[in-house]
């Protein structure tokens, strides 16, 4: 797994989306579900909330975002399994746009 550390100028929304979709497809390789797209609701992937939390943990590490994505999602007060893939992508991009908060906070 490649570490994707970099600023938002280096990583575009399409990169994040493709990366996340690839991860979701790997996780669901043995599950009989409809093809996963950006519009897929996480609850329809067959993954449980703990697994999605781990997925977000890995994304945060790969983009060097510390816990920015997790915190942003918690603030929405929305159950994680009701979110669409595109909303996670948006959240990751938003965190990247904040100019690598890990460095600012660190």
């Amino acid at each position, binding site marked *: *797994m*490649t*570490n994707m550390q970099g600023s938002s100028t280096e990583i575009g929304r399409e990169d994040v989306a493709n990366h996340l979709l690839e*991860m979701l497809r*790997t*996780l669901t*390789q043995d599950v009989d579900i409809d093809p996963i797209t950006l519009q897929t609701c996480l609850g329809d992937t*067959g*993954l*449980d*909330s*703990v*697994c999605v*939390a*781990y*997925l977000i*943990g*890995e994304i*945060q*590490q*790969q983009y060097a975002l*510390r*816990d920015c994505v*997790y*915190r942003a999602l*918690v603030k929405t007060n929305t159950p994680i399994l009701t979110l669409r893939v595109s909303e996670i992508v948006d959240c990751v991009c938003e965190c990247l746009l904040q100019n690598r908060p890990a460095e600012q906070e660190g």
Partner: protein
Amino acid sequence: MEGKRHSTVLIGWDGATFSVLDPFTRDGTMPFLAQFMAEGVRGTLHSTVHPVTAAAWPSLMTGVNPGQHGVFDFVKVDRREDRYTYVLSTSTDLRAETIWSIAARQGCRVTSLNFISMFPAPDIPGVFVVPGFVPYQYLPLAMRPAGLYSRIKTIPGFEARELALDWALERKALQGLPEAEYESWIKFHMLRERHWFDIVCMLMREEPCDLTAVLFDGVDKLQHLCYHLVDPQYSERYASPWARKIRNLCLEYFRQLDDFLRQIVQLAGAETRVFIASDHGFTLAEDEVFYANVWLEQHGYLKWADGVPLDQEARLTMDSHSGADTMFDWPATTAFALTPSSNAIYIRTARKSGAGAPASDYHAFRRILADALLGFRDGSGRQVVQAVLTREEAFPGEYMAEAPDLTLILRDRSFLSVLRADAPLKPRIAPYGTHHPDGVFLARGQGIPKGVELPAAPIVDVAATLLYSLGLPIPRQMEGTVILPAFEPSVLDANPVRMENSSSSSHAAAADSDSAAVDEGFKKAVMERLIALNYLQRPGG
């Protein structure tokens, strides 16, 4: 001068304790372990100051104490808002270099199986990682290198659900089980250990490594619920047919563990050194549960949120994923406990007007709270909280500020409950095993003396000892040192301990500043206090 490189295997037995292993070596339950002890060395391994898996294994893996590696509990507490929350600790929180990484950057191939704080796993060439504490659905992405999962899936009988973490099951080790579920619980752990055993054997055959490490965590799980049935000091008191049946199942578990050890040693070959270590030991808790948040409420430090139910079953935490942080009326709360595993009290410092200890009064507030906890007595006048450690005492180091404000050591070394109850001290429903700071360390193989009892060593010494066995220099930032009596004098003469000269790792520079930050005199004073509290033994004592 290059040290002589010896293939090295580390077998982790989570929670293993000589009070159980020794009787099993004598009564024939673990015949290979008896042979292993006779042909090698053994000694007590002192755990971290608070002996909990989440902090202790990282200390073993990095050679530094929690204040220097940054992991204090299974969760990381976020104090940035008025309402404290927590998230699962991950490898991002482990900020000291692991022996897997140290060995790999010096050209060793490494296998690391089932260790905590390894998720997300590092992507290091030559390192095979299956992290511990990962839910089964995430396993396909969790392993390194990519593609390892596909290979592991081909092992006959492999079942991801049985291998991986299930938080509902984990909680059972804390909360207790109905008698009817003990049998399936033990059998499940036998199955899980077999999966880890199959994986380590596959990798030892197909991807032989200089350092192979595997953690079997069922010992801890079984002993939490069945310690009274496996320690002969207590087991004779439990003679019902059910108790005998469950004890026999526990013996089966330990026989299997013994057989795994025999097979791993055989597979490793005569040239390989095999080490066994546990993160902490075990003992039997007394028959009471301390509800820390109830005590805090009674003393005006905490207010419950509306609708928080009273616990009637001597449980330690909630059964669902929802956090303990939902239980408090935050504006009216200044001190609280979030997790049983940490045995910690957090102090909420005020950011603005309203509840919270004023930052300027933090130390005085903390001292008053600690003294009050120490003054808590049960109905017979016995002290309940044996010691209260500040974070400076328990977790000195660069990441001390992230540690709990206070860490409690209860008189029976048990874990506190975070739940609401009608009294701060209530009877336990069933016997319960709890962590003891004295774990185990054993080693056998070329250059290791036979039948030698080692002086007690701290858990941070294991990392340096494994690196020495591998013929590698020891990073200077490592707090632990090589357990020298674990090696023949001729080995030590031929291969003197070498310290790493350059700051090869990205962690080295940070660690250098750590050592400057933590005044040696202060460290010594803290050690003296811990020894005075009878919590640590004097080195060599």
